[in-house]
């Protein structure tokens, strides 16, 4: 099944052409070619060790790789540092501590790409930080040091940091880590709102049911692209079931696609 049938000339936010990457001597990605549509939410899924995070890191330029990556139609390497940082924001996994910084300071770091060196934050910076912290319901603890927060609260602050960049393209590696169900639902709404504003969101999610709420899905297996298609497409569901050894089945519940565990191997 071909995706994007209805919207013929799709604008592409990120495209990868034959990218391969290795860590040490073991190769992680094998010649992946991908075109991620602008203004949509794409989730990347696959079993442990399939290369999801590595792919995401390669797309941001954090991971040296062969092949080429283009951001908004321009090779990533040709972007000036500051322009790239304003266009593309990134949320990593298990990142540094920053325990001494207050919530507000952490979110303000998202404004670094917008600030000239040594100049204090502008009114626009403060407004963006407030908006981002309110969006993740972290505004009330803006004066608290990050070190005093729980894992989930921290994650919401880091999300706010990502939002404060106000980039066109947002890449997130396991953004739902440590979040409880209400805040997972909030995150889904937030991403939908971002996409409605025309932004592009790409996320790695290990929770397949949440990943199925995206517009499109990229399924990876052993560092190779197994499938790329719309989340509601049957082909995508078949690829998902295949990549997880048919230990899940994808079903619709109350209008939402869900991956349910299959307790006995077929």
């Amino acid at each position, binding site marked *: 099944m071909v995706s994007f049938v209805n919207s013929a000339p799709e604008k592409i936010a990120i495209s990868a052409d034959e990218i391969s990457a290795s860590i040490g001597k073991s190769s992680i990605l094998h010649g992946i070619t991908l075109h991620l549509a602008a203004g949509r939410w794409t989730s990347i899924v696959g079993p442990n060790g399939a290369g999801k995070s590595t792919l995401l*890191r390669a797309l*941001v330029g954090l991971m040296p790789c062969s092949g080429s990556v283009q951001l908004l139609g321009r090779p990533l390497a040709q972007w000036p540092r500051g322009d790239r940082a304003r266009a593309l924001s990134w949320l990593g996994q298990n*990142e*540094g501590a920053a325990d001494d*910084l207050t919530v507000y*300071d952490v979110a303000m770091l998202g404004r670094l790409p917008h600030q000239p060196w040594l100049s204090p934050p502008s009114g626009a910076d403060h407004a963006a930080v407030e908006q981002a912290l309110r969006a993740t319901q972290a505004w009330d603890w803006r004066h608290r*040091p990050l070190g005093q927060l729980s894992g989930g609260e921290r994650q919401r602050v880091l999300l706010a*940091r990502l939002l404060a960049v106000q980039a066109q393209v947002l890449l997130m590696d396991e953004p739902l880590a440590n979040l409880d169900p209400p805040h997972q639902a909030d995150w889904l709404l937030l991403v939908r709102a971002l996409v409605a504003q025309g932004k592009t969101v790409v996320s790695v999610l290990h929770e397949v049911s949440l990943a199925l709420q995206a517009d499109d899905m990229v399924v990876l297996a052993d560092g190779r692209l197994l499938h790329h298609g719309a989340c509601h497409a049957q082909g995508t569901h078949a690829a998902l079931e295949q990549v997880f050894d048919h230990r899940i089945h994808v079903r619709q519940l109350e209008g939402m696609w869900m991956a349910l565990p299959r307790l006995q191997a077929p």
Partner: protein
Amino acid sequence: MSMSVAQRGRWLGLALVCASLLLVPLGTAVGSVGLENLWPALFSEHTEPASRAMAWQIVWDIRLPRTLGAWCAGALLGLAGAVAQGLFRNPLADPYLLGSASGASLGVALALALMGGGAGMVAGSKGVIASLIFSGHWLVRLGLTGAAFAGAVLAVLLTLALARGVQHTLRLLLAGVIVGVVLGAFTSLILLLSPDSLQAMQAFLLGSTGFVGWTSCLLMAGVWLLCLLAAWALSRVLDGLALGESTAHSLGLPLAPLRAALVAVLALATGTAVAQTGLIAFVGLAAPHLVRAVVKVPHGRLMGLASLMGAVLLAAADLLARGLIAPQELPVGVLTAVLGGGYLLWLMRRRTGAGGLL
């Protein structure tokens, strides 16, 4: 919490400035000749010009530069500690990590051996008289200071070469440890071959503020201001790095040149302090910790506060070193090691009691 972070930071800064203003005049009063003898000699109508000149010399030529020198060296070490802990993203990092301490030791050991030992710093045990005599040997002092500084800088360069640049923090740390061990072995070998320099070397290893004159004082103050300005300008990089390497990269920070600049600040501040006062332990490690125990601030403000904290710590330790068993004198490095180590032990016990490590 009734006070905001910014307010607490300001209060701490104010308290440290007040402590400094108190410590500097106190520093001129403590030593083998007490204030009760100095004061009349300086200001009484009936004093002979000769003893007035002598008293004036003690205050102006020895104690004031020494106290201010201790303050400046402490400020340099506190600043270097804050930079090192931010750069390595490790609260246990100290300014000597990149091999500067062992490099400076090797430089001094070499210089002492070449000069035939004994010529340089004889431990503060002989007090004011010794420093009066030996501070006169400016050529010797310059030789030792220069050797220490050159050793520190060369050792840092060696560490950087071994780590193949500043890109990998862990590799940098490991290279620093290796350089420290190897240069330390060479220092031991030199000392073994020229036992005459052992006593003077001891003074350097323990750290001493006894020989700081006006020139070194001004030098340290200048370098401190320069390093503080540079560290402050680079502080947002450290804040960004605290969020992790990949986030810092995604924020568009040019990490390699900025790291190199931070290492340069670290090496310059540490090398200058070590060259003037020897290896003073724990000030660089403890000062940023003490600040963080009171208030959590971004790196921009941490630089200033850790500097002030280090300055007050070393000025106070210097005062104690002179006062505790006056007219004898303790090496100030011994005091900072005992006090700093004790503080860290207490901190560790408190934190482990609260369920965490440092």
